[in-house]
């Protein structure tokens, strides 16, 4: 039986039919009919944000911690443009989002109407796909297609722009089962011939490495389980990108730590020296490869990716496999098992001996202090005191983010939410709110820097309104730490505009919003203060005053290969030439 309803009602109905439980949004003139429909129902929860960028990051946090698409509802013009940063963030990190924007009525489009913006034009390169719906009869089908596109293949944000007259007009509702989605069916199964070649590589490899990324997380928890089985059965070392942390457990026997610009010494040298590299759901990002010419020069590379355009984009691959990480890993495991689960055990044992030598360097060592809190120490204590808890971590962007990635350990996927591709300062706080909405009883901590955190601090209002006990663990060095570090290493210690002379009193700020503030500057008080934060039933701003001039190591400077890593301050003199300083 077909149901006739208004476009606004269709939006709510389509969200219900897609299993949406929560929408992050902000009302405005061009979405009032939809807000009216939201008011008249109780199935979908609406979270009122304080800025549209916050809404998108919350939806990202929700999506990353649940594997379900995040949904955002904002108005036309400034509502849509404010959402753009979050949408690009989701595009870069392949996070499924459905963003609904209001638009001026169809007959006003192009007249420079009040709060009109060319949302489709603005977001075309920012989304996986976007649609302007000019006819109510097409609205419900478009919404179902939007969910299909956002969640199939390589996930990503999609946007549906809905003019106000389309929301008021009535038409027949198309249920999800009748919506046409067959035109977009990305390939999930890998090519058997290539899978065979990969299995042969696994059987003969002498210095193998699994290099895993966010694609494993996006492929679902089952993919992570298959990865664990394959890695443990082969006994090969496993490293991961920033995006992929938790797919293989940090407590696992074969874990050698995160790789990349601030990755672990052993992981980067293993990438450099390996003879077989199995890339599962990572994309050879420039933070990983360093200088392309010298990237892992002696290895044959296999690349499993659901997006064909990721393959051979920057690094040539001998064995390209287009498909879903979970499906392909299962096929690889099955074929390798069928052929007797062979590996070159002797050579791999020798390879591990070398990795253990690199590990003995202890690249994360830092000079402890009894007088000031070292940021690494703060994160290490946070790890020690929260280990074993039902814990989710988000971060902002900068030094603290890298220290969090280095010192926090993740044994499960979907527990680590950070802005990797776009590197969006201001991501972590709203993301932590989205995570807490999805997991009300979990411990959700945003490891932040004070500068990033201030970029979306208005969302304290959201945290208070919805009683979300998110913990804001701010490593406060009163500096833009990563910018300062680069200025020290690359720009002759000229610290151009990389500190703030007017930081708020974070404890008073917390209290002004009705939250709890904790200030800590003495290493001896740190553990008690962290426990106080964890035990408090409500949002906390933890102002952790840390060493101001600490640099984040190890570090591969831009334009350098993996084997030219800096381990500490002593290594930094004159290492980056003019050519390197033009790279970001």
């Amino acid at each position, binding site marked *: 039986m077909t149901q006739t309803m208004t476009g606004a009602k269709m939006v709510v109905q389509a969200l219900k039919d897609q299993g949406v439980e929560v929408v992050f949004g902000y009302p405005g003139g061009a979405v009032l009919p939809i807000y009216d429909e939201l008011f008249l129902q109780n199935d979908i929860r609406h979270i009122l944000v304080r800025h549209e960028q916050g809404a998108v990051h919350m939806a990202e946090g929700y999506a990353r911690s649940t594997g379900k698409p995040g949904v955002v509802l904002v108005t036309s013009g400034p509502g849509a443009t404010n959402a753009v940063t979050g949408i690009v963030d989701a595009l870069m990190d392949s996070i499924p989002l459905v963003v609904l924007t209001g638009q001026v009525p169809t007959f006003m489009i192009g007249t420079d109407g009040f709060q009109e913006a060319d949302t489709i034009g603005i977001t*075309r390169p920012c989304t996986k796909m976007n649609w*302007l719906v000019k006819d109510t009869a097409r609205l419900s089908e478009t919404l179902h297609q939007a969910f299909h596109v956002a969640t199939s293949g390589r996930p990503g944000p999609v946007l549906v722009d809905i003019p106000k007259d389309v929301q008021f007009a009535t038409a027949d509702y198309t249920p999800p089962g009748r919506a046409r989605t067959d035109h977009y069916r990305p390939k999930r199964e890998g090519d058997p011939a290539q899978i065979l070649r990969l299995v042969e590589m696994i059987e003969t490899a002498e210095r193998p490495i699994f290099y895993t990324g966010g694609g494993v997380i996006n492929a679902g928890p089952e993919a992570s389980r298959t990865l664990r089985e394959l890695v443990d059965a082969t006994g090969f070392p496993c490293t991961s990108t920033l995006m992929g942390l938790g797919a293989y457990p940090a407590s696992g026997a074969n874990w050698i730590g995160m790789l990349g610009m601030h990755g672990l010494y052993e992981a980067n040298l293993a990438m450099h020296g390996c003879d077989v590299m199995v890339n599962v759901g990572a994309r050879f990002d420039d933070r990983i490869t360093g200088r392309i010419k010298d990237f892992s020069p002696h290895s044959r590379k296999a690349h499993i990716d659901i*997006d064909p*355009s990721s393959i051979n984009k920057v690094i040539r691959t001998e064995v390209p496999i287009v498909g879903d990480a979970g499906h392909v890993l299962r096929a690889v495991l099955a074929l390798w098992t069928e052929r007797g689960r062979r590996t070159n055990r002797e050579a791999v044992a020798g390879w591990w001996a070398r990795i253990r030598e690199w590990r003995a360097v202890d690249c994360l060592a830092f000079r402890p202090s009894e007088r000031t809190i070292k940021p690494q120490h703060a994160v290490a204590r946070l790890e020690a005191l929260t280990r074993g808890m039902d814990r989710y971590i988000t971060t902002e962007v900068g030094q603290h983010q890298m220290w969090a990635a280095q010192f926090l350990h993740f044994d499960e996927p979907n527990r680590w939410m950070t802005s990797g591709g776009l590197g969006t300062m201001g991501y972590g706080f709203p993301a932590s709110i989205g995570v807490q909405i999805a997991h009300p009883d979990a411990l959700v901590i945003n490891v932040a820097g004070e500068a990033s955190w201030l970029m979306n601090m208005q969302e304290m209002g959201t945290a208070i309104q919805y009683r979300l006990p998110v913990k804001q663990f701010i490593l406060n060095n009163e500096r833009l730490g990563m910018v300062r570090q680069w200025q020290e290493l690359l720009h002759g210690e000229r610290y151009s505009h990389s500190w703030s002379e007017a930081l708020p009193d974070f404890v008073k700020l917390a209290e002004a919003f009705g939250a709890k503030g904790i200030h800590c500057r003495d290493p001896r008080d740190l553990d008690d203060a962290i426990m106080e934060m964890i035990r408090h039933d409500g949002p906390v701003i933890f102002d952790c005053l840390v060493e101001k001039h600490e640099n984040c190591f190890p570090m591969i400077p831009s334009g350098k290969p993996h084997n030219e890593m800096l381990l500490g301050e002593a290594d930094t003199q004159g290492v980056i030439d003019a050519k390197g300083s033009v790279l970001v």
Partner: protein
Amino acid sequence: MSALNIRRGASSQSAYDLRDPNAPVTGSHTLAVIVENEPGVLARVIGLFSGRGYNIESLTVAEVDHAGHRSRITIVTTGTPQVIEQIKAQLERMVPVHMVRDLTVDGPAVQRELGLLKVAGRGEARIEALRLAEIFRANVVDSTLESFVFEITGTPEKIDAFADLMRPLGLCEMARTGVAALARGA
């Protein structure tokens, strides 16, 4: 192409090709892209090329299947083999793109372009223009006592050659459609 046709990138001071023989060869490729005929698709395709820094030498687009809502975009682009492969992969992953064919690589193809050339002149030049037009099988689609508009169809090189000949004879304006191309055979 004739042997005398000096390839782009060769030095004008030398008859030899002075390019590094080991440098990746940049070639011209003609891509046929079948897309959903809906608003914004062309903007999406062009945005991909500008956003990722790919070249467009020519581009044509028109609906080719009204019932099936399909348009065909023919793009002539240049790049190293790796860049061309990326362009194809990036086009293929777009939601409204149904199919991408590299007509330069996939086998023999016919390529045609239409040009309109306005040539103004009197006397001997005007007669010479008409004579050359006949050789090139160009049609006169407009004439006044002082000008002709020629319509010429052929490969881009043929239109280039015709335009080169017309230039000293009073070529004053030209419009070209860009390349349309189809693979040969069934």
